[in-house]
């Protein structure tokens, strides 16, 4: 899991510009699946057919988003400084004074205008310095519409905890790949669709079309969730290291009650560490799946994560592995 996360956090792919991360995921998932394809919006879909007779197989969609938050270039100044617009919910305090990497691999630094108070940090007050002498030199490397993100990568902390970015939601992608590996070894009865969705960070857009195309019977999302265990956090009965978080509700969805109870029962039976999660603010692909077409039974398993949308997102790999185990055990039932 650690090595997989190293690989997955090394590629940049902001919402709407997911080609590179999609290609990387394809190389990882293709050997594990029966069929892989990208849809019109760019969602990567990998199918593993079940062992039951075709008529008896249900379609189960497992979905993690592969996009990350980042920036699009909007303007290049005479000085060679680059102005950007945020894509997704940028935490400007976390973004200021950090290294960024462009889709081309070019590096730069994101800095605020001198004298900007932390509370005033926003897109208009920040720019990217790529070291260009002037506009002309900058324009040889960067053009309007190019994208960049805070540099990726992870650091090992104590135990099995890691910090870095973008853990949101490459950890979900890693969980999906681990599930696919397990199913490759011992297949299950139902068809499983692994969906690496696009444009989640800008409003769960990709999962919507992917779900419509698949028309699954059940949809499960895998994403990070906030926790109540960082200093100063609002009360929330969910913690890093507390196991797979079975989502009951976030601000976009109330999960299917029967599914959440099934997951809790399977976790108990198999002695898999788990907890319930009620996220006060934040949405996931779960809602997009639930309201697709004539409706889909939807739930989510979350990986508790501190400092989400910063350069030092932090989680425990044991929680992610609990999500893998729980899903595999549930699929086997």
């Amino acid at each position, binding site marked *: 899991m650690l090595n997989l996360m190293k690989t997955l956090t090394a590629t940049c792919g902001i919402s709407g510009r997911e080609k590179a991360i999609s290609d990387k995921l394809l190389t990882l998932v293709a050997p594990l699946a029966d069929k892989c394809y990208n849809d019109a919006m760019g969602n990567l879909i990998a199918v593993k057919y079940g062992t039951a007779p075709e008529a008896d197989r249900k379609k189960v969609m497992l979905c993690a988003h592969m996009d990350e938050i980042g920036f699009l270039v909007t303007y290049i100044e005479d000085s060679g400084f680059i102005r950007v617009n945020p894509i997704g919910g940028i935490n400007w305090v976390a973004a200021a004074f950090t290294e960024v990497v462009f889709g081309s691999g070019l590096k730069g630094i994101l800095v605020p205008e001198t004298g900007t108070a932390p509370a005033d940090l926003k897109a208009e007050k920040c720019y990217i310095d790529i070291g260009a002498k002037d506009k002309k030199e900058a324009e040889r490397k960067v053009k309007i519409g190019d994208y960049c993100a805070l540099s990726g990568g992870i650091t090992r902390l104590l135990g099995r905890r890691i910090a870095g970015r973008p853990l949101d939601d490459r950890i979900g992608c890693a969980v999906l790949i681990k599930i696919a590996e397990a199913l490759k070894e011992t297949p299950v009865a139902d068809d499983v669709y692994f969906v690496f969705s696009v444009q989640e960070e800008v409003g769960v857009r990709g999962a919507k079309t992917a779900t419509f195309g698949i028309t699954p*019977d059940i949809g499960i999302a895998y994403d990070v969730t906030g926790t109540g265990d960082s200093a100063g956090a*609002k*009360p*929330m*009965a969910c913690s890093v290291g507390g196991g797979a978080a079975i989502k*009951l*509700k976030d601000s*976009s*969805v*109330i*999960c*299917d*009650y*029967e599914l*959440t109870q099934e997951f809790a029962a399977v976790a108990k039976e198999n002695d898999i560490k788990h907890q*319930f999660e*009620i996220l*006060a603010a934040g949405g996931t692909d779960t*809602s997009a799946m*639930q*309201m*697709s*077409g*004539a*409706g*889909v*039974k939807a739930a989510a398993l979350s990986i508790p994560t501190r400092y989400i949308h910063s350069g030092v997102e932090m989680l425990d790999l044991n929680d992610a592995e609990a999500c893998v185990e729980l899903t595999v055990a549930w699929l086997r039932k």
Partner: protein
Amino acid sequence: MTLKELIVSLSGIMSVSGNERKNREALQELIGGVFDEYRTDALGNHLFIKKCGRPNAPRILVDTHFDEIGMMVTDIKEGGFVTVTNIGGVDTRILPASEVIIYGGEPVYGVFAAKAPHLSTAADMEKLTPLPEMVIDTGYSKEELEDLCPIGTPVGFKPIYAELLNERLAGKAFDDKACGACAVYGIDAVQRRDLAGDVYFLFSAYEETGMTGARVAGFGIRPDYALVLDVTHASVPEAKDRYLPEFGSGVAIAASPITNRKLTRMVTDLCKSGNVPFTVDACPGSTGTNANVLGISAEGIPTALCSLPLKSMHTSAEVLSMEDARALSRVVSLFIKSKEISEVFGK
């Protein structure tokens, strides 16, 4: 059962968004007899069908939402206290010292804690405690509660119903089950042979949390046209400048960019010819109801919206007028009988 009794019985069923399936049997027992067929779907929408008996008849959708606002247990504290989060738009002003039911394995009665005035300063009393900081006092131990009502258990206002003067009713969850009762009553009043088509009565899920139920039900049912019933704010002293409908003014028919103009005009004509009192409720932006999502569902469903004026919406003491409720049930009867409408909008 009278319309009044049906309103109270339906509104008393716990159906906090996300729990629409839980009391299906009670719901079917109450209203199933009016219909020929029952269906449900992946989201827990309840669909009741009354057939007109003719083949290839138009599909007429009548939608009211079954879910109600409420709360969900988020944590259990030492001393038998429970914290909650809101499901839908809960008015936190009414919570201190209010009675609730925690719908666990068995119902747990509780009271929202409130600081005694003797212990509060005048400045304290002006402030509202945010919901996540409020607690419900249950009288059980933490361990017992973890078993009785774990995290995720729904919480609702204790159902207390009373009749006020002039046939006005006070209670919880009239939004939108009072409209549901009017729909069932109105559908029951029409003889099968008088129906202009097959009537699909949708008691939809998840309206209060984003109109999700109607969105997918519209796609699944593909009706030819639809009538949405929901509540609207009635005129109250503190909102005179909003020109809201008065109690006793009948049905509020929505004029909005989203609802179908022709269908709305025909509903208005039905009211005029049927002597049903009505007012026009102009909604220049969004209607805030399932009409928003049904109109653009799949191939588009021509939709009209009729509302029941309601006071103190989203509290444990909503107030409605039976006069208006009866008018609403009559509109439903006229709508599903209307040959004019089925000729224009039926396939």
